[in-house]
């Protein structure tokens, strides 16, 4: 049956899920790893329970260890029972879901392993009716990405196509972050992937885009009429984006030594938040229309010049200290971290989007580990009123209006404004008007991976990162990293765990006559 000629299904009209998932096989490379067991398998099970996925849906786990299908199924069951938000597993649903789980033992660079994978996929396509639709999920160290893509291509599984032609089944590939280590390596990786897969087949995951509250940024801006008219340099004084963690590197020292806060957080998650806040309204909600606008924002951020680095960026590294009354290691004492490491665990930046909407409005970004609170927030700080009408209260005493979008935890939106304190005198006091997701929509949102895996199965790449987004964000990050590399180690101040980072970060924003929001 040629998929391209299938008539629309009239029974789909008005359904909760207007788009239908075609039967497919998801091949997970790195099937024994943490990501697969903590996130991917629980997400797939949750989808099967709540959507449901088509009965033909199947999973092939690929890894080096010698497991049987039954071993893999048991491990998957254990993982779902431990990590799924719908645990414990529903036995009856699991029984049919698990029949579609397979394990394929292979080295990632073994051509014979791919030949036998081809046979297994043929068998599944025939036995379970998965129509030759294959999604390859690379849950492996990034160094394997080009190797796996190359072998998939050699085995005829990549089916590289530029145009929309999935009539004989589709092949898609999902790659995890980090996508490259810098611009050069990202381009090189992309070139390798492009030998096997065209851009429309590649889904670069940034799990922040799967979060409900991140998607709500677009709804807030473009689903309401009242915000967009003031969402510009006439009314906005500055924008602050904070991604703060209380945890340290938690045993991932080897990865973090290579990445640092800049590559781990700024290049991907924070740039996504910034582009969603800064973008123009897209002409529609199609993948390319949305991503075109996001790319325009990135293009409008000029890479920092070396002479701007000292003033507009701050690095930091957490030292020994206490959090919640418990002693914590300093970064350089962490496992797999060099004793004299120069890797930053904190970054603060000031950036400008040089376009008509945002010219002159600073975007302050800060992120770090071992900070005072775990919180992710975007704060739109508006300009003060130009003239203080009320005697006895100076305009400079008024606090500016702030619209804060809390991504996590306590997801919600707050508007801070001034109100009169009841009484004979004209005293003004700042108050918060709070919208909390939890109290208005008490439903437990799906995990970010559930949404993203489903979007990939549906062939919608809106919530995935396009290559030019990656390129522009690396260009910016590279400009900073290059300048930092020339600075002495003393340029990385240490900060006390449980604080909001080094005092230099406060100085960065205070030089502009502003302060970080107290979170």
């Amino acid at each position, binding site marked *: *049956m*040629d*998929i391209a000629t*299938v*008539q629309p*299904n*009239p*029974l*789909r*009209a*008005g*359904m*909760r*899920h207007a788009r*239908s*998932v*075609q*039967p497919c096989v998801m091949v997970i490379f790195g099937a024994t790893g943490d990501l697969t067991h903590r996130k991917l398998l629980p997400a797939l099970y949750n989808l099967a*329970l*709540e959507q*449901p996925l*088509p*009965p*033909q849906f199947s999973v092939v786990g690929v890894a080096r260890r010698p497991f049987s299908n039954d071993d893999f199924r*048991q491990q998957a*069951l*254990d993982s779902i*029972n431990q990590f799924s938000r*719908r645990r*414990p*597993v*529903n*036995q*009856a*649903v*699991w*029984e*049919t879901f*698990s*029949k*579609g789980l397979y394990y394929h033992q292979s080295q990632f660079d073994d051509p014979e392993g791919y030949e036998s994978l081809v046979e297994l996929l043929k068998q599944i396509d*025939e*036995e*379970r*009716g998965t*129509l030759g639709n294959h999604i390859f999920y690379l849950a492996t160290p990034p160094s394997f990405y080009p190797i796996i893509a190359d072998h998939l291509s050699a085995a005829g599984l990549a089916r590289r196509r530029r145009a929309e032609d999935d009539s004989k089944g589709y092949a898609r590939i999902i790659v995890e972050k980090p996508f490259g280590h810098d611009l050069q390596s990202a381009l090189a990786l992309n070139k390798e992937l492009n030998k096997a897969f065209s851009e429309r087949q590649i889904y670069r995951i940034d799990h922040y885009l799967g979060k409900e509250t991140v998607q709500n940024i677009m709804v807030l801006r473009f689903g309401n009429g009242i915000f967009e008219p003031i969402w510009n340099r006439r009314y906005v004084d500055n924008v602050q984006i904070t991604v703060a963690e209380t945890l340290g590197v938690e045993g991932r020292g080897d990865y973090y030594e290579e990445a640092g806060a800049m590559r781990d957080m700024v290049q991907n998650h924070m740039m996504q938040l910034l582009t969603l806040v800064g973008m123009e309204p897209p002409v529609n909600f199609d993948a390319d229309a949305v991503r075109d606008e996001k790319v325009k924002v990135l293009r409008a951020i000029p890479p920092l010049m070396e002479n701007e680095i000292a003033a507009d960026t701050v690095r930091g590294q957490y030292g020994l200290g206490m959090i919640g009354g418990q002693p914590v290691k300093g970064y350089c004492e962490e496992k797999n971290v060099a004793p004299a490491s120069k890797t930053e665990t904190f970054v603060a930046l000031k950036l400008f989007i040089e376009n008509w909407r945002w010219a002159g409005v600073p975007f302050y970004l800060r992120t770090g580990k071992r900070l005072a609170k775990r919180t992710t927030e975007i704060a739109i700080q508006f300009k003060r009123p130009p003239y203080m009408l009320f005697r006895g209260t100076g305009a400079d005493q008024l606090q500016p209006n702030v619209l804060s979008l809390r991504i996590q935890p306590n997801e919600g939106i707050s508007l801070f404004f001034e109100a009169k304190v009841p009484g004979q005198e004209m005293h003004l006091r700042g108050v918060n*008007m*709070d*919208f*909390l997701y*939890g*109290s*208005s*929509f*008490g*439903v*437990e949102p799906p995990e970010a991976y559930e949404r993203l895996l489903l979007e990939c199965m549906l062939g919608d790449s809106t919530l995935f990162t396009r290559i030019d987004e990656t390129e522009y964000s690396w260009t910016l990050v590279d400009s900073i990293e290059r300048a930092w590399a020339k600075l002495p180690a003393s340029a990385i101040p240490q900060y006390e765990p449980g604080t909001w980072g080094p005092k230099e970060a406060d100085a960065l924003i205070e030089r502009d006559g502003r302060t970080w929001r107290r979170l």
Partner: protein
Amino acid sequence: MSETQETQQTHQAEAGASGVRGMRPVALDAVESELDNMWRDANARIAAAGGHAIARNSVLTLVAFTHGEDDARHLLRRIHALSTQHPSRAIIVAADPHDRGHDMRAYISTYTSTDLASYGEDIVVVAQSEAIRHLPGLVLPLIVSGLPAFLWWTGEPPWGSELLEALVDGSDRLIVDTTEMAHAAQSVGALDDLMRRKAGRCAVSDISWTAQTPWREVIAQFFDAPAARPYLDTIERVTIEYAAGEEDAPTNSSQAYLFAGWLASRLGWRAATSQPSGVGASREHALRDGGGRTINLEISARYGVPQRIWWQSDEAGSEVDDTPPDNGASSQNGRAQSSAQPAATAAAWVRPGALMLVHLTARLNGARATFALAREQDLAHATTLCQIPHTATPSQTIHLQSLGERSPLAAQLQELGHDSVFEEALDAAAQLMGAGPRRGVR
């Protein structure tokens, strides 16, 4: 958020409160001001304990109409347990036409979850028979301004009465459950009539429709597959079975007919005969598609299935309880057990008239295909069967509750506008049941 109902606490349970247990009696003209006071007191206590004040987020008003104070208590439990849309204000009207008198009383309470993540306020209005006609004047001003207002009428509404018309006109959506009504055909017909009269103002909806959503989704999903799609145009026979209690008790087939109406309206089928054939538990209908092809429809009752009015159940949180009934049945090694085994079925039940089986057969170029979804013995799951020549399709077991079968009210509150698919299905169902005016299905 199924734990919410476990952790909710009512703020005010005044000593000496009479009437609705745990609620504060208030004068009819002081409901709003007393609610303000109650929130102020609650915030003062929270502030004294070092907590943050509660803001009164507003999402919607739900007016629920029922008959007695016991039913009001059941309804409050269900409303508090709602997970997907939290009503900022619930107004429960307990009006008993057999309780002679002119008395009308009001009670209020506010509640929060212990983590302060969810909260709301309740108003219960109890009216004796002679006071019922005055209810709109009390209830309508209590609807929160500018927010969606839902009117949920349990049992059979007084079709055509001034009371119903006034409350419907003050609401955005009327929610009923035709399976709770004594005469399915009359109820479906009356709802169809109200829907047409109120078109453009108040939308109407049937909890029976949302409760069968998983069935429609799975049946629709069969035909997403390219190999199955051509068979959708060649369906020859449809068999629908619905749950009935004892053989001598009345059965309610409205859910089965709504399902048949959905197929008919989506696929352009019309009733070929004005009356069904068949006796006893089974009814046979002949339908025709646009090309004149005949489709046979059989609707049958399956007797002896345990049934309950879902909101009257004392089972905790049946609106939101997402715990599979067989959770405790997993074996030590965690291996799956047969889905066909009746698991912990002691409390297994379905709503009256719930779908038990949908079975479609189609023939294309002489080849026969079968598509079926059958409820398992445990009543909580259903399993698919898809047989298409030269095509492999595995069976799949679904957990109906996880797909929304037992949370129909939450799903209803997510919809605001008219649901044209439901309205067309209702219209078609009314015709099949002989309850609607003779018009084209589409």
